[in-house]
């Protein structure tokens, strides 16, 4: 028996107006290339970075929502490497002194089973430029022959990015899904990111290894991890990431079962969607040596100081989804399942609370409201709350079972359908006892007429009885 050991790194782009270290607009999506740049984000010599306060607050809020401890001291460092998406030759990131450390978050599977994921850190860094591999038919002015070129757009360079690193606590791909969904919900509740995976606001990397159950050497709880780790990187779709993780688990178990442990290496693999396999991108031998060192151009942070108080940030935190759900259960008497659905998105929860307020004035219980909204799948975002209340009001008056009232309506319908009634009467066949049986289809048409007149609220069984009494005698 083998068990996967998976850790995740999530990168999320913050939705600040300006970039992390300069005043260029951070809104790069769909913009003309290289129109949001300056000496800082182009990495020109002598340019000096200047920290975006709202980005730091966003990063700290994420840390707090993930039950992390804000670091007392925090520093930026230079992560040195050469790649065309990085003009400076280093990424301004955090390594030894991240803003937030040691947290946790509970995820839930479909059956409501909880699992705690430990968070190692949440730190602030900057995004890189965007590389374009398909540039027309690759002909530049200087050369006429087709050559292999890459285009660089620096609009994304320097956009605030937060990296969240978990401990290796995941054991299957469905947990990765649950975790990513939870993070996305948190980012949106906090309002720090749009967290749109398709647009690349949120990106996942996974570290996957497999251990033999009962193999004490490789026990996660004792901190002894398998002696290798496969990094799944540069997979820009969530669906492909899940497929890649599942493929890796299978591949690694097969190698272990075949006794080919030595083929399991520390390496980076990507996903080939055509072949549905992972493939090696970079092996350990070439692994980067980032030579981190403290960024001398940026000042140190003291999170708990007169200019920057964590208490103020805490005060500015919104109620988080699980807190809201709990309050809906406690204060409004909702079922937990309804409360969870109604708090999935913050806008949804806000509208529901407005609905509760209006409902109270019209004596409709929150529980009835929740039930109706969830069961009828009411689109709260696009429906007028007053209309919803009116709908519930008219429906909750309930079924008409008053015989006198129904008798009156039945007689009306009979009068209005003279022809049909005659045909029906002719269809009557004497049966053994007093009541005769007529054509059931014709009777159903008459019942339908009664239902229409009562907006579907008539007790159908009773209507049938009354009609038969009036017509079959």
């Amino acid at each position, binding site marked *: 028996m083998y068990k996967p050991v998976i850790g995740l790194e999530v990168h999320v782009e913050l939705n600040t107006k300006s970039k992390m270290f300069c005043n260029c607009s951070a809104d790069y999506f769909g913009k003309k290339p290289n129109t949001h740049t300056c000496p800082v984000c182009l990495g020109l010599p002598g340019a000096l970075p200047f*920290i975006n306060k709202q980005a730091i607050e966003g990063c700290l809020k994420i840390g707090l929502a993930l039950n992390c401890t804000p670091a007392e001291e925090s520093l930026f460092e230079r992560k040195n490497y050469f790649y065309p998406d990085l003009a400076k030759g280093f990424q301004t990131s955090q390594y030894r002194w991240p803003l937030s450390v040691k947290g946790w978050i509970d995820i839930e599977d479909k059956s409501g089973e909880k699992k705690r994921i430990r968070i190692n850190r949440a730190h602030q860094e900057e995004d890189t430029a965007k590389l374009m591999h398909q540039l*027309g038919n690759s002909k530049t002015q200087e050369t006429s022959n087709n050559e292999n070129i890459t285009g*660089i757009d620096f609009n994304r360079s320097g956009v605030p990015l937060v990296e969240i690193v978990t401990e290796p606590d995941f054991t299957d791909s469905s947990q990765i899904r649950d975790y990513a969904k939870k993070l996305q919900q948190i980012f949106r509740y906090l309002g720090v990111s749009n967290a749109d995976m398709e647009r690349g606001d949120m990106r996942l990397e996974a570290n996957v290894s497999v251990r033999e159950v009962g193999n004490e050497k490789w026990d996660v709880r004792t901190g002894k991890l398998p002696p290798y780790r496969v990094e799944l990187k540069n997979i820009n779709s969530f669906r492909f990431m899940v497929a890649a993780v599942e493929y890796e688990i299978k591949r690694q178990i097969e190698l272990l079962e075949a006794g080919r442990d030595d083929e399991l290496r520390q390496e980076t693999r990507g996903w080939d969607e055509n072949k549905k396999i992972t493939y090696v991108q970079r092996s350990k031998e070439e692994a980067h040596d980032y030579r981190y060192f403290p960024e001398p151009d940026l000042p140190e942070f003291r999170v708990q100081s007169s200019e920057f108080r964590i208490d103020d940030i805490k005060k500015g935190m919104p109620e988080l989804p699980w807190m809201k759900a709990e309050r809906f259960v406690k204060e409004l008497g909702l079922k937990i399942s309804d409360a969870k659905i109604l708090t999935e998105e913050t806008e949804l929860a806000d509208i529901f609370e407005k609905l509760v307020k209006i409902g109270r004035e019209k004596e409709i219980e929150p529980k009835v409201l929740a039930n109706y909204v969830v069961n009828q799948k009411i689109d709260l975002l696009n429906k007028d709350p007053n209309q919803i209340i009116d709908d519930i009001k008219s429906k909750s008056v309930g079924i008409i079972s008053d015989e006198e009232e129904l008798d009156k309506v039945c007689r009306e319908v009979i009068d209005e359908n003279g022809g049909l009634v005659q045909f029906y009467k002719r269809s009557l066949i004497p049966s053994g006892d007093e009541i005769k049986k007529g054509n059931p289809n014709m009777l159903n048409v008459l019942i339908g007429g009664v239902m229409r007149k009562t907006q579907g609220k008539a007790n159908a069984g009773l209507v049938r009885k009354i009609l038969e009494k009036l017509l079959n005698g």
Partner: protein
Amino acid sequence: MKLTKDQVKKVAKLANLPLSEAEEEESAEQLSKILDYIDQLEKVDTRGVEPTYNVTGNENVMREDEIGESLSAEDALKNASKTKDGFFVTKGVFESE
């Protein structure tokens, strides 16, 4: 401290510098001397001295999240050796993205 040629090769690779064999020799010599020079600092007694990462003594210097002026695309690309369709152009990279 004497740097080996392999160490020089590694450092050169990390710094993205193409070095000829002669330059490797020369760099090994020069870098070793620099290290010796820096090593003198090891003699200073730093017990009880807090590490310093930043000489300005500033803390928590931040700016408000406001958009300012950016360069025009034309200015941004002015010094590029190769451009195409508003992009900086470099040798093809297939490794990722």
